[in-house]
Each structure stands twice: as structure tokens, then as C-alpha cells.
């Protein structure tokens, strides 16, 4: 125990004297979260949309005026032919088209029910998504004012062109939080071990009576404390800068963060067993973790639309499970009964990585 404290004490001294670690630790996450966060929550102002009014009657005119009056859109009405939409999209200036069918007013009056088609250019799915939701709000207002209070009165038929699958924009903030937490945690431990190797102090530690498990634990504990502080910073940014809702229990959220951070720190140690310099460790944890994590965690690209082999691969990415967990807790407010499976998988991954790291540490000595 005494040896363990001597070790942890030394680690804290390293941390507080090494500006680089401190900058990585506290600066990078804030910069990244803010950068990523603002880059994806674009406000809509004067978005160019195309309205194809096939009805050209009282209600359709009212609806179009409503859209214009909202101030979010600049409306083009220069065609009555739905076949032009393809060409307009290809010009690239218009991201969304609204098609009002010929029978619009008639349907509304006779059946209390009408259809509107929204076609979006999903090469830029997020913008399309945002415009669509703004537009839906306008339609809702229209229903209310015209007395058709039932939301089913107007059936909005959205068709995402070019990209049939699309996920909610809430995906991004939890995704960014997850990836940054993971990168920073893994990078810290991998660099600190690589540095010991670079300086030759690792050799001395191996000759000393310190057991590999104590070395590993001694590397994890100080960075666990820092990573948790870090997680708090990121969480606060998510809550107050990006207005993420927090519907679930904080205790549950912190427990899950603890498990995920632990897994990431161990992953960093595993990386350090194969890298001999700080640069290698940094690059490996940055490139080796960032790409698979961003691509396969479901953060940007929906996993369900991937080929089977990639879907299976994504199962071993801890971030995938953590994103599911964090979204469930924050957005849906669910309890542990709904996410125990993901939690167990995450714990399983952490234990597996730990065993592998201890093994690797020992193998290196053989």
C-alpha cells in the first residue's frame, strides 16, 4: 500500500508539472466540445426552400404566406412542375421542397385531412433535418389557427432524398461528449506510460519490487480522478451551452461515466504497451481510436445501415454502448432496468481490456 501511494504521489507531481498534459486535459475537451457543438447546431435563417403549389387555392396560399411570415425561409415559387425539383436540388442552393397537392383545400374541407409532401436534399442531412423541423412547427401553427386542431389533420410526408436513413440531431452532443471523453482519457494514460519508456524509468520500475498490477493501478487512479473532473466539464457544457436535457438520474449517469472512463483509461494503457515513444502513443490513441470510434459508434453514421461485418465490429467499440446509455439516461430518462445490458457489456469490455493489459505488461517482460 505504501508503495502504491508513493507511486500515485509521483504521478500527481508529473501531472501538475507537465503543462502539456494539463492542456490536453482541460483545454482540449472544452475547445472540441464547443467547436463540434456549435458547428452542428446551426440556426436557420433565410433558408432557401422551393414551394410547388399544385393546388393554388385559398388554403394553399394561406399556408405559403404562413411559411413566408415565419422569417426562417426565403420561398421560391417559380415552378408548378414537380419534375423540376430534381434539377433545383442539383443546383444545390435549395435544400428542401414543399409540394402542396392539387386537392389540398378540398381534402381539408371534406375529410378534415390533407397531405403535404416535403422533399429534402439529404446529402446534407443535418441541415435538411433542421429545416424540416422548423417547417413542421410552421405547419402545426397553421393547423391551430385554421381550427384543425387535431395534429393528424395534416399528414406531413417527409421523404429524405439521397439518404433514406437519418438520425436525430440530439445524436451529436452525446456523441461528441463520448468521443472526447474517450480520446482524452486514453491519450493521457498512453502518453504517461510511453514517457516512462522513453526516459528509461520503466526499466527501473520493472527491476523494482513493484508488481505490474500496482504499476497499472498507479497509472489509472490519478488519471481517473482527472478524467472524472473532465467529464463534469464536458457534461456541464452539454447541459448549459447546448441545452441537452437531463431527464434521468445523475447517480446513474455518473456511474456509467465512471465505467466508461475506466475502460478508456485501460485502453490507453493497452496502447502504451505497443508504443515506445510519446509521439507514437499520441498518434495511436488519436488516429487508432478516433476513426473507428467516430465511424462505428453510430455517432454520425447509423449502424443499422452498415454491412453486417461492420455491425458486428461496432459491438466491440465501447463508445457505441456508452452513446446508447448516455442518450437513454439524458434524453429518455430511463433507469438501469432499461440499460443494464449495455452497462454489463461496457463493464465486460473494461475487464477484458484490463486482463489483456496486465498480460501484455507481463509478456513484455518475458
Amino acid at each position: 500500500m505504501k508503495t502504491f501511494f508513493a507511486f500515485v504521489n509521483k504521478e500527481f507531481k508529473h501531472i501538475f508539472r507537465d503543462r502539456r498534459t494539463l492542456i490536453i486535459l482541460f483545454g482540449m475537451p472544452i475547445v472540441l466540445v464547443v467547436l463540434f457543438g456549435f458547428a452542428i447546431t446551426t440556426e436557420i435563417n433565410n433558408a432557401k426552400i422551393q414551394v410547388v403549389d399544385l393546388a393554388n387555392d385559398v388554403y394553399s396560399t394561406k399556408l405559403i404566406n404562413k411559411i413566408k411570415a415565419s422569417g426562417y425561409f426565403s420561398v421560391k415559387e417559380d415552378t408548378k412542375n414537380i419534375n423540376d425539383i430534381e434539377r433545383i436540388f442539383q443546383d444545390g442552393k435549395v435544400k428542401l421542397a414543399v409540394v402542396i397537392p392539387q386537392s389540398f383545400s378540398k381534402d381539408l374541407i371534406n375529410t378534415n385531412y390533407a397531405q403535404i409532401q416535403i422533399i429534402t436534399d439529404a446529402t446534407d442531412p443535418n441541415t435538411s433535418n433542421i429545416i424540416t423541423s422548423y417547417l413542421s412547427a410552421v405547419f402545426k401553427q397553421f393547423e391551430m389557427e385554421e381550427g384543425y386542431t387535431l395534429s393528424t389533420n395534416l399528414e406531413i410526408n417527409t421523404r429524405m432524398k439521397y439518404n433514406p436513413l437519418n438520425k436525430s440531431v440530439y445524436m451529436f452532443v452525446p456523441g461528441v461528449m463520448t468521443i472526447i471523453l474517450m480520446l482524452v482519457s486514453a491519450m493521457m494514460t498512453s502518453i504517461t506510460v510511453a514517457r516512462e519508456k522513453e526516459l528509461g524509468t520503466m526499466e527501473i520500475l520493472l527491476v523494482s519490487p513493484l508488481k505490474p498490477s500496482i504499476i497499472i493501478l498507479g497509472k489509472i487512479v490519478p488519471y481517473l480522478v482527472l478524467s472524472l473532473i473532465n467529464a463534469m466539464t464536458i457534461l456541464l457544457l452539454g447541459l448549459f451551452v447546448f441545452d441537452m436535457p437531463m431527464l434521468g438520474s445523475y447517480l446513474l449517469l455518473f456511474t456509467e461515466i465512471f465505467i466508461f472512463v475506466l475502460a478508456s483509461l485501460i485502453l490507453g494503457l493497452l496502447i502504451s504497451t505497443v508504443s515506445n515513444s510519446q509521439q507514437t502513443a499520441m498518434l495511436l490513441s488519436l488516429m487508432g481510436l478516433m476513426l473507428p470510434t467516430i465511424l462505428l459508434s453510430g455517432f454520425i453514421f447509423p449502424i443499422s445501415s452498415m454491412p453486417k461485418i461492420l455491425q458486428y465490429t461496432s459491438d466491440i467499440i465501447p463508445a457505441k454502448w456508452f452513446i446508447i446509455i448516455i442518450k437513454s439516461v439524458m434524453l429518455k430518462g430511463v433507469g438501469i432496468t432499461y440499460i443494464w445490458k449495455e452497462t454489463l457489456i461496457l463493464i465486460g469490455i473494461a475487464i477484458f481490456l484490463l486482463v489483456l493489459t496486465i498480460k501484455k505488461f507481463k509478456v513484455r517482460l518475458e
Partner: protein
Amino acid sequence: MEKETVIEVKNLTKAYGAFKAVNDISFEVYKGEIFGFLGANGAGKTTAIKMLTGIITSTSGDGSVAGYNINKQRDKLKENIGYMSQKFSLYEDLTLMENVEFYGGIYGLSKKQIIDKATLMLDRLHMNHIKDTLISDIPLGWKQKIAFSVAIIHDPKIVFLDEPTSGVDPITRRQFWDLIYQAVEDGITVFVTTHYMDEAEYCDRISMMVDGEIYAIGSLQYLLNKYDSKTMDEVFIKIARG
């Protein structure tokens, strides 16, 4: 007087695939002596030292250090040896005193023991005035002396020095050897590797290693006579040429 054996090695071999880094070496080191483990770069000295200090396991053969088996009793063994690598490995971002505290700590010394040891050590090295200086601000030759003192802070039975004088000027080297003699007086056995043949004259006994094998072992005078040479350089050249 019967000599007490502190290192005993029998047919020790370390093979990496077909390549034998250390090939069937056997020797003994006695308590209180300075044992010079000489050889060119790549002769297998570092591999041998790694087996003796319990960092790597041997492919075949066996040995004991300070009475503990090098493959089976590593934990005990590690408590009883000191080690200094050719990089003088100290933490650059810690002060002299903090390094001493850390190394004392991982060898399980109490706070009081560490303070007593540190006081004695700083006195001997005349470094009291820089005890709170960061290692990165201390010159190389001084670091080397500190690294050695730290390696023996827990009073090991044997200290292994892996090329402790590489990259240091001759005067500092001489001063460093004074520290080694001091350690021997305190009852520590010294196992030192070097590729400076002239340093052999500081050792009580010398082994000459070439291509993973020990070609000759004995006192300086014995080797000079055996190979009919005037200096260790000559001995080395004669052995290397076969």
C-alpha cells in the same frame, strides 16, 4: 576464508528464435567484490543483466542472485538488488529529493528511513544545496552520481550497473568509481557492465563476453597473463579474433 557466493549462474541461455543472445554462460560472483562484465556492444551483456535482475526469463539454464532463484523467486530477488541503467533514469520533472522519496517509497522504506538515507547521501555527494532542484536542471555527471545513490538507497545486497559511465568524461568517471568503492565498503557487491576496457582495472574480477558467450573470466592479472597482453584492450582484441 571461504568466499560467500552471491550470484551463481549455470548454463544460462536466452534465445530469440534461432539467435542466442546469451549462450550457455556459467559464472559465480562473490560477496563484496566488484565484478566487471565486459564485452563489446551487442555481446549480450544487457540481456544477461536482464535475466539476473528478473526482467526477462531465461530460455534454459538457471541461476540465483542474493540467494533467490532468478526465474522462480523474482519478488524476493527484486527486493534485494539495485539497478542503474545506462540512461541514469531519474524523473526529470521531479526534484532530487522527490526522486529519492519516490524510489525509497517503491522499495518500501518508511518516511524516516528515507530522510535518514537522503541526509547521508546528500552529505556524501555534497549536493545539499540542490536537493530541491529539478533533475532536468542538474548536469549529466551529477545525475549519474544521484542515479547510483538512488539505486542503492534500500541497501541492496547486489547492485547491477548497466554501462553506468557511458557518455561521461574521464574525470567524472573516476569520481563515479570512488562512489562504487564506497558502496563496496558498505558491504554491497557490485556487478558492472562496461565496454570501456580501461575500466577493467578497477574491478576485482572480470569476465569477457563475445557473441553471447563468456570467453575468459578471472582477475585482471590473470587475464593479462593468460593472453600475454599489457592492457585489456589487447586481451579483448585477441579474444575477439579468436
